[in-house]
């Protein structure tokens, strides 16, 4: 089935659209996740950098504060001037605050265990350091300069300061390590993300290209199927027309054969028989030439049929007067009405109006009923009401004689009238002949 094939390619095209859309959506989701992770990692590295910077600055300040305090104490030791003790006390208090700040800062960080341990040790060492400085100040106050210098010489202070420096360096090393590893992992993730995005782009491109190829193929297949279907239906129609034509030709041959055999039966003279056969076949051919094969309801106009059949018989000096509305004959009526008109015309030439110079022939047709206007309009679509044809031959001097025997011609008229769903009546008067054909209306009820 061609429709089946077209539906199949449509389904396939839709499946391709859906799967490509799905691939693209999945790729985008994966890409978004990767980018979000890279951004988060970058942010973390930046936060760590800020923390590290703060911590480094604070540790630097811490060291300077201790040294400042030491400088103040030294000034007092050397001069004995109490004024030097004011900055010493200030720096000592400042040191305590800075230590607390640093502790707070480190406690906010997530991974600060070793740094806090180092800070604890700095606290211990600085307490030792300040104790020694206090002892030196106490000795100087007693004016015991030797004892004060001894305390310095013992080296406890220097030891504590070296310890503080070492611990500060420990904190700094940890912080720098933390910063380094955060940036390193951010960079790694960035590289990975870039690679992943590249891969996703590639996959999306491949999906799009292959979808394009598949859809192209599907469309080609559909076009081919449609073309095949069209070809098939055209071939079917041509077959139908050729069958119909063959049917008609066979029927026509059958009718011609019956014209030959029935005319042959009726005539004794071979020449007369041949002429009548020829005339009847000719009438058949004219009626056939007139009929429109496409529209069986409106095959030929009655007026056209009258002139096509009767005109060839008009003798010199005569004419046929014909009038009537447009009435379409259905296909099954054209041939029998043509044969009837042929018989009437040949009789007119032989025995009737056209056998004398004065005779006249009038053919009229009309719809039955009073409302001629609507009848004529209805007639355009094929007569749905009855109609009649009136054939009038007039001879002024009353030359016409009614035939005594019914010839085969009148027999043929009767038969053809029945076939054309019409009733025929003839009346002979002193001055001529009137033939009336009353046609039933078209349509199912008329049959």
């Amino acid at each position: 089935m061609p429709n089946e094939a077209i539906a199949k390619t449509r389904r396939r095209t839709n499946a391709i659209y859906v799967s490509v859309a799905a691939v693209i959506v999945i790729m985008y989701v994966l890409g978004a996740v990767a980018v979000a992770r890279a951004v988060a990692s970058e942010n973390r590295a930046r936060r760590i950098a800020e923390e590290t910077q703060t911590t480094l600055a604070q540790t630097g300040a811490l060291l300077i504060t201790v040294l400042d305090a030491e400088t103040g104490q030294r000034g007092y030791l050397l001069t004995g001037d109490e004024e030097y003790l004011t900055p010493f006390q200030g720096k000592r208090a400042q040191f305590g605050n800075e230590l607390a700040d640093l502790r707070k800062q480190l406690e906010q960080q997530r991974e600060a265990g070793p740094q806090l341990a180092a800070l604890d040790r700095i606290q211990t060492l600085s307490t030792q350091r300040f104790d020694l400085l206090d002892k030196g100040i106490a000795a100087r106050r007693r004016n015991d300069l030797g004892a004060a210098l001894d305390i310095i010489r013992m080296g406890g202070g220097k030891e504590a300061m070296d310890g503080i420096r070492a611990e500060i360096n420990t904190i700094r090393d940890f912080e720098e390590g933390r910063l380094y590893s955060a940036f390193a992992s951010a960079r790694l993730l960035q590289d990975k993300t870039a690679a992943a995005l590249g891969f996703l782009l590639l996959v999306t491109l491949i999906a799009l290209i292959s979808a394009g190829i598949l859809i192209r193929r599907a469309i080609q297949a559909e076009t081919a199927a449609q073309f095949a279907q069209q070809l098939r239906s055209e071939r079917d129609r041509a077959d139908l027309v050729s069958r119909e034509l063959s049917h008609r030709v066979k029927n026509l041959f059958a009718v011609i054969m019956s014209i030959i055999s029935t005319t042959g039966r009726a005539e004794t003279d071979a020449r007369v028989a041949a002429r009548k056969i020829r005339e009847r076949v000719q009438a058949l051919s004219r009626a056939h030439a007139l009929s429109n094969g496409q529209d069986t309801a409106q095959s030929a106009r009655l007026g056209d049929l009258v002139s096509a059949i009767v005109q060839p018989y008009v003798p010199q000096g005569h004419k046929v007067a014909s009038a009537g509305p447009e009435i379409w004959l259905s296909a099954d009526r054209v041939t029998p009405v043509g044969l009837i008109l042929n018989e009437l015309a040949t009789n007119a030439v032989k025995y009737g109006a056209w056998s004398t110079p004065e005779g006249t022939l009038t053919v009229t047709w009309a719809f039955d009923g009073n409302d001629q206007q609507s009848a004529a309009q209805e007639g355009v679509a094929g007569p749905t009401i009855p109609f009649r044809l009136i054939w009038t031959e007039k001879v002024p001097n009353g030359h016409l004689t009614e035939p005594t025997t019914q010839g085969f011609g009148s027999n043929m008229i009767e038969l053809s009238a029945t076939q054309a769903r019409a009733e025929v009546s003839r009346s002979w008067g002193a001055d001529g002949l009137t033939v009336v054909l009353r046609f039933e209306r078209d349509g199912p009820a008329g049959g």
Partner: protein
Amino acid sequence: MKVNGKRILVVEDEALLALDLRFALEDRGASVVGPCYRLSTALTTAQLGGIDAAVLDVDLAGETVFPVADLLKQANIPFVFHTGRHNPQVLSEAYRDIPICPKPTNPETVADTLFALIERQQMH
């Protein structure tokens, strides 16, 4: 001849063909019922009965003769199809054993085919 006086139904929408068939049948001593030009009159005539055999044209002014054919088959009345159809061999599976005379066939041949059918039925 055994066909003498047999009543033959003629269904044919071409008047001259019907007349020709009538002559051929009457020449052989049969009498003709009809001819019927339309399916409706053919059906009515067939239902009335008193028919020994029939010649059926298949296409009658837009209708097909098959209802008449079915009626005759049921009544076991012999008949032949007389048709101008393009490919009459494929009329229908239901009428496989009904003889077909494709148009144009001599009316004498149609008559002979029908009479052969009547004689065969009489022998059985």
